[in-house]
């Protein structure tokens, strides 16, 4: 395999919610210091030109992981190697220079666009910031970018509120492309859009990837969209990667009980299949990341959990070639769990 574009090693992002001081105890605050381990020891490699899908329930840390890769949140420990540079060690000017090569597409396109700037100004901003072009050359690039994402050039002096959600997302994509990045984190890029518009944005992102050799981290809770867009899929649960494999393998042959439940919960647009489908319905909610369960964090909801699951923390193991899972009940010799506990 060629050198990865991005190599993440034992990345941790912890948020300190405070508590535990004399003052907190006296005023009814938390008697102990609360730490949210949003990302807790993630190691991943992302290859140039691939789309890595990142799925999981809300609160599992997938957005925090995406933001940490762009250093939009502070990294507690670990390394993020981007083309040979450790982003975790950078700051100030050096970090800003690297950011030119990595951009983000957000879930809520309207909230991510400055309402007082015109479309032209929004798209031109990265070009100015990174001093890529100026004057007529800059104007030309803005016009090209608008055409690339399917926006008419005559909208150049309009404001974000004048556009529909799908068009706003196109503006967000044009801005992300403006500095000609190598890597884009797309955080739920279609979940705020109408069904008929979702397909348009997915197709646009795939065409852009082919034209510009982009690498995507595609974060979504929509497992159907992830299956379509991704080469490999990482499943996240309470701050950790619990399964990682080729997209086809994750969907056709999921190894982790959690992944099985996630995939079986996706409603399929086919009444014939739905009527005879066996669905694994998980009990309970995602536990709080402040006090994650001991051992395997999934064990309280897992139909296959045994006593040892509450004691041993599983690590991500290559169960089948290029198919990794974190579960003490499976191994390369026994990739499937026989029966519920």
């Amino acid at each position, binding site marked *: 395999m060629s050198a990865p574009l991005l190599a993440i090693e034992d990345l941790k992002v912890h948020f300190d919610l405070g508590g535990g001081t004399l003052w907190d105890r006296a005023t009814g605050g938390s008697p102990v210091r609360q730490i949210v381990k949003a990302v807790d020891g993630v190691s991943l490699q992302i290859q140039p030109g691939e789309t890595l899908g990142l799925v999981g329930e809300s609160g599992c840390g997938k957005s925090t992981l995406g933001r940490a890769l762009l250093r939009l949140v502070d990294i507690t420990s670990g390394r993020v190697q981007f083309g040979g540079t450790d982003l975790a060690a950078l700051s100030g000017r050096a970090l800003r220079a690297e950011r030119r090569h990595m951009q983000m597409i957000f879930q809520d396109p309207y909230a991510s666009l400055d309402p007082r700037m015109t479309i032209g100004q929004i798209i031109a901003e990265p070009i100015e910031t990174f001093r890529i072009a100026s004057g007529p050359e800059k104007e030309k690039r803005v016009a090209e970018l608008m055409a690339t994402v399917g926006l008419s050039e005559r909208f150049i002096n309009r404001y974000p509120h004048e556009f529909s959600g799908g068009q706003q997302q196109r503006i967000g994509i044009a801005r992300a492309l403006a500095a000609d990045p190598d890597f884009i984190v797309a955080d739920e890029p279609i979940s705020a859009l109408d*069904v008929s518009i979702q397909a348009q944005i997915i197709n646009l992102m795939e065409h852009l990837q082919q034209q510009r050799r982009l690498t995507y981290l595609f974060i979504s809770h929509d497992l*159907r969209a992830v299956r379509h*867009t991704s080469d490999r899929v990482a499943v996240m649960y309470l701050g950790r990667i619990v399964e990682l494999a080729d997209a086809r393998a994750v969907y056709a042959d999921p190894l982790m009980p959690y992944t099985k439940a996630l995939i079986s919960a996706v*409603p*399929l647009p*086919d*009444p014939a299949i739905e009527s005879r489908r066996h669905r694994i319905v*998980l009990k309970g*909610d995602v536990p709080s990341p402040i006090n994650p369960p001991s051992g395997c964090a999934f064990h309280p909801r897992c139909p296959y959990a045994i006593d040892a699951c509450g004691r041993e923390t599983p690590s991500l193991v290559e169960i089948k070639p290029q198919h990794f899972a974190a579960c003490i009940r499976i191994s390369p010799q026994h990739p499937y769990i026989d029966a519920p506990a």
Partner: protein
Amino acid sequence: MGAAPLLSVRDLRTYFDEEGQTARAVDGVSFDLARGETLGIVGESGSGKTVTNLSILRLVPAPPGRIVGGQILFDGRDLLSLSDSDLRKVRGKRIGMIFQDPMTSLNPFMRISRQLMEVTELHLGHSRAEAFEHAVKMLELVGIPDARRRARGYPHELSGGMRQRVMIAMALSCRPELIIADEPTTALDVTIQAQILDLIRQLKADTGTSVILITHDLGVVAGMTDRLIVMYAGKVFESGSTVEIFARPANPYTRGLLLSVPDVTAMDRGDLYQIRGLPPDVAHLPPGCPFAPRCDRAEARCRETAPPMVQVAPGHFSLCHFADEVYAAPAGQPVMSGSR
């Protein structure tokens, strides 16, 4: 259908007056719902699916909204002509409602028990003690663990899935004959969505209540509903049995929606089918068929004359000049102009 329908919506029209324009949010919608049946209403933003259901309950904000015509016959009585006090006896008692975002529909300052008790004190004449016991029973029914203790808590102490269960408990408190659920699982994770849909399915089997399920998710309607209506630009574009519509969509819009959902079992990763253009602005609709600007099958007449509602098979209707042709076309592919 032999017996009289529980709900019969006839030519409903709800308009909104905004900045001197009239937006026909709901423009001549008709459908029937039998007792015990689950009807899905599918559509994108601006399709009128939510306004249709707010109209059924007369909850359309007025102004700017107004119901300008039609009938909503619930068990034979027209809800649109009831007095406000008679309507209140139906709303929440005989018709329960579940909304998308439970946090905005629950009162954050009121104990959960109190919010459930209000409903049965009003409609069933429960005493305080009776109402509390009933509230606990309802919370247990919808699967809230430790219901007696939880009942004394506040909505913010619960997760999103648990809050939605409280909403369902509230909607079911008076054993309604009809439940209207508007995007009940859209704000939830897939695993929690599966729990809530399971719960609605099971409660329906136990109580025999009728359900209207409004959603944009074709996967959800596929597994939950008996019949389906597909709305676009305030109109019913297609209606029929769920199985039949998925197998043989007779409207280019329905066909496009079905094709644009990524298939998790598909092997190839080519382009998704995409409906071009944008959902309609109902204040500025083109003449003719409102879907014509986005339609692969459209011809000159689609842009000039409004399409007819065509019955393509018993109980299966499509609003399209080419309904029979689209119905007869092979499933799983779009129908293009000049493809004959």
